[in-house]
């Protein structure tokens, strides 16, 4: 503190632009300089206003940052006294990875290249996240498209979504001017399209999430209903004398929609009127009238939890369910045998033509079945050898395609066609097995538990994205959260009561959210970035515009089917 009064030498060297130099004592700070000289990294949870050009940080975080900077200057590295202890430094935000109909789980976030996962683990994680309940609708989709067309469509959609996924992964690396280490795909969209990009990617992501949650509700009601019926029949030793069309052997397959002609209905089975006990059960345990409401009592409380990290521990159930489904399908196929006949254009009594013009229904379902574009960047970031990212992504997609093909082909081919028509394949292929079938009972129980653990996670992600952007706080108050949960649950209940066609819900929400994330944004961003680098050629432009048109067509045509 010496020489306060004597030395009037200016200590601060002026870094000025000499043309506009206002004097030797001033330092000019250009506001854009400030942004690029920003010396610290703040976790996203502390960024409170993302709409402003300059991101604002919460005052508390900013003060703590200054404090830590200053304390670091006071002590030597060996001295531990002024190093921030763990409980004062804010914890990194929880990072969840999810595919709308697949799994959702918490991920440790690493910076680039510091991931610890081997290729095998990365491939498995991608496969696991994508695999989900859309598997139940693949046989129906194949039926809608025709057997041959179905197989070709699955392979082609796999390739198309793989290419778009590759574009998503590469999109971040093409931004050279900024540090994109922590960016996920919505951040890339915001970079190119401003706040429109951010809001639209948020909207489409919510469409996929809420569509998935509605599907989950319908399926959970279905499985709960069948499980309850199985247990009731088991306890009371009732033989299910359905008046529904079914095969007469040890592995019964039923055709629930045969009587009603087309539109599958969740109306209950008709029972012997003399059994009043059963009738009582029937009124209280109805697939579309009562069971969806019982679920409300179970799941609405779970949705209100602040942090669902408890549920992410049950992630293994998803894998087990899928593996069990594969086993189940193989087992049934072995016992039922193959029933295939190839009629190319004309439907017969029991078979569907090989080429049908309702194949867009399958593409709609597949858009959501192959969807992982919202979190593929984060998943690949954890890969130990980053140079293998593309290879691992391709392998994962091939495995997913093979799994879908396997299930679709086997269920379709083994469906007993002489007594039943192939048209009977339900949108949820487990519906084709009666509720008394033990193996499918086990499958339903697995899936029911798995869905009950993923549902709160999806609700949390929807809440974080919606409330986080509207209110800036992911838990503004219990009332906001409760109202949001009631809306989501209400939508699920309404759909379960009046339109429980999961194939329909999946294809509409898949085509809608896929439009943005799978088709339009990756291609458009690639075109723009090439144009900025003057590397845009006519073939590339035409090809990517073609992809965009395909995406639009995919969505529009869903409404005409």
């Amino acid at each position, binding site marked *: *503190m010496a020489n306060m009064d004597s030395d009037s030498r200016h*200590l601060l060297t002026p870094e000025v632009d000499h043309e506009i130099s206002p004097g030797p004592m001033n*330092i000019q700070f250009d506001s854009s300089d400030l942004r690029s000289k920003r010396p610290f990294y703040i976790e996203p949870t502390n960024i409170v206003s993302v709409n402003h050009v300059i991101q604002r940080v919460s005052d508390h975080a900013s003060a703590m940052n200054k404090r830590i900077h*200053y304390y670091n200057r006071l002590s030597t590295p060996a001295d531990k*006294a002024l190093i921030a202890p763990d409980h*004062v430094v804010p914890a990194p935000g929880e990072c969840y990875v999810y595919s709308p109909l697949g799994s959702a789980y918490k991920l440790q976030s690493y910076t680039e290249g510091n991931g610890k996962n081997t290729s095998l683990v990365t491939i498995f994680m991608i496969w696991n996240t994508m695999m989900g309940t859309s598997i139940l609708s693949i046989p129906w989709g194949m039926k809608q498209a025709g057997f041959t067309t179905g197989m070709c469509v699955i392979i082609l959609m796999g390739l198309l979504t793989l290419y778009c996924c590759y574009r998503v992964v590469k999109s971040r690396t093409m931004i050279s001017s900024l540090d994109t280490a922590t960016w996920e795909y919505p951040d890339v969209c915001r970079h190119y399209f401003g706040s429109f990009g951010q809001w639209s990617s948020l909207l489409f992501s919510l469409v996929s999430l809420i569509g998935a949650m509605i599907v989950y509700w319908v399926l959970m009601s279905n499985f709960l209903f069948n499980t309850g019926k199985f247990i009731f029949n088991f306890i009371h030793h009732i033989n299910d004398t359905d008046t529904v069309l079914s095969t007469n052997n040890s592995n019964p397959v039923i055709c629930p929609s045969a009587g009603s002609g087309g539109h599958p209905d969740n109306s209950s089975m008709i029972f012997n009127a003399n059994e009043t006990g059963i009738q009582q059960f029937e009124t209280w345990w109805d697939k579309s009238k009562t069971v969806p409401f019982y679920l409300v009592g179970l799941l609405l409380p779970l949705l209100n939890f602040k942090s669902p990290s408890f549920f992410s521990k049950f992630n293994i159930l998803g894998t087990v369910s899928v593996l069990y489904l594969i086993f189940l399908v193989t087992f049934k196929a072995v016992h039922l045998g193959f029933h295939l006949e190839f009629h190319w254009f004309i439907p017969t009594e029991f078979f569907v033509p090989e080429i049908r013009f309702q194949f867009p229904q399958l593409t709609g379902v597949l858009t959501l079945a192959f969807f992982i574009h919202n979190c593929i960047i984060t998943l690949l970031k954890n890969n130990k050898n980053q140079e293998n990212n593309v290879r691992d992504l391709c392998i994962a997609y091939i495995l997913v395609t093979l799994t879908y093909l396997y299930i679709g082909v086997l269920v379709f081919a083994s469906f007993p066609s002489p007594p039943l028509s192939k048209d009977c394949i339900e949108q949820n292929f487990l519906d084709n097995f009666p509720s008394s079938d033990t193996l499918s009972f086990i499958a339903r129980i697995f899936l029911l538990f798995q869905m009950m653990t993923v549902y709160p996670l999806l609700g949390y992600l929807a809440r974080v994205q919606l409330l986080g952007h509207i209110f800036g706080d992911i838990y503004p108050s219990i009332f906001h959260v409760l109202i949001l949960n009631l809306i989501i649950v209400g939508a699920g209940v309404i759909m379960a009561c009046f339109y429980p066609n999961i194939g329909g819900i999946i294809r509409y929400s898949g085509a809608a959210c896929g439009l943005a994330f799978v088709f339009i944004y990756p291609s458009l961003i690639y075109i723009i970035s090439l144009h900025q680098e003057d590397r845009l050629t006519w073939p590339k432009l035409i090809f990517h515009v073609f992809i965009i048109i395909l995406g639009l067509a995919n969505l529009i045509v869903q409404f005409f089917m």
Partner: protein
Amino acid sequence: MKKKVLLMGKSGSGKTSMRSIIFANYIARDTRRLGATIDVEHSHVRFLGNLVLNLWDCGGQDTFMENYFTSQRDNIFRNVEVLIYVFDVESRELEKDMHYYQSCLEAILQNSPDAKIFCLVHKMDLVQEDQRDLIFKEREEDLRRLSRPLECACFRTSIWDETLYKAWSSIVYQLIPNVQQLEMNLRNFAQIIEADEVLLFERATFLVISHYQCREQRDVHRFEKISNIIKQFKLSCSKLAASFQSMEVRNSNFAAFIDIFTSNTYVMVVMSDPSIPSAATLINIRNARKHFEKLERVDGPKHSLLMR
């Protein structure tokens, strides 16, 4: 005779860290010492004029300290202007702590009965957030009771939030005798030059003595942040054997001036009208400087801390 600020407390209660942070000194040695400080640490820091900061460890090795205490007691406790006693909130030996505290108070009563007493309940970050108010209230009541007939002001502090800075700012505020007059003059000054905000800092520690703002500011942590930034800058300057004198920060939204004011204070003026040329504001500050120095000189040497 130079007046003292005694910073006392049990060994390991955080005094040295606190001293480093407030006064921007490098920590001279490892604070996790194996034994208690045998000697008192003198800091020749000009704090609020001519105050010298003395740092004391209290209650390390019992018998040794007792002896030292009794033999050197008068020496230590004479001419004390301020006693700041630091309590570690996590301490398991509350009885002993209070015992040493009372010994200090007795010594103060005998040697410097006019001294101001401040108690800091430190390391509050280690207490769970919902319990902090409760625990602090308990301690405050105990300390007030034990301190009678002397009056003590209690603060709860932690180096990991803004409470430390606020506590020391309050302490400094209470040590300035004519602070209300200072504030009124500051307000007049700010209104005349049409400034958004004017802050008066103590020179050594950049603790805010008083401030005037013409409208609500968003960031409540801004005083501590500015203080930390400038202290960090001063550390950088000292590495070049230079000393910090003044600073102007300007962008399209505002212009801020930090400059020496009186012999013991710094001033920071924030103007939100960037069209006013710097020269005008600097002239205003220079003229105000003369006025404020006169203010300090007006009070007699007995009452004023700022002029010794």
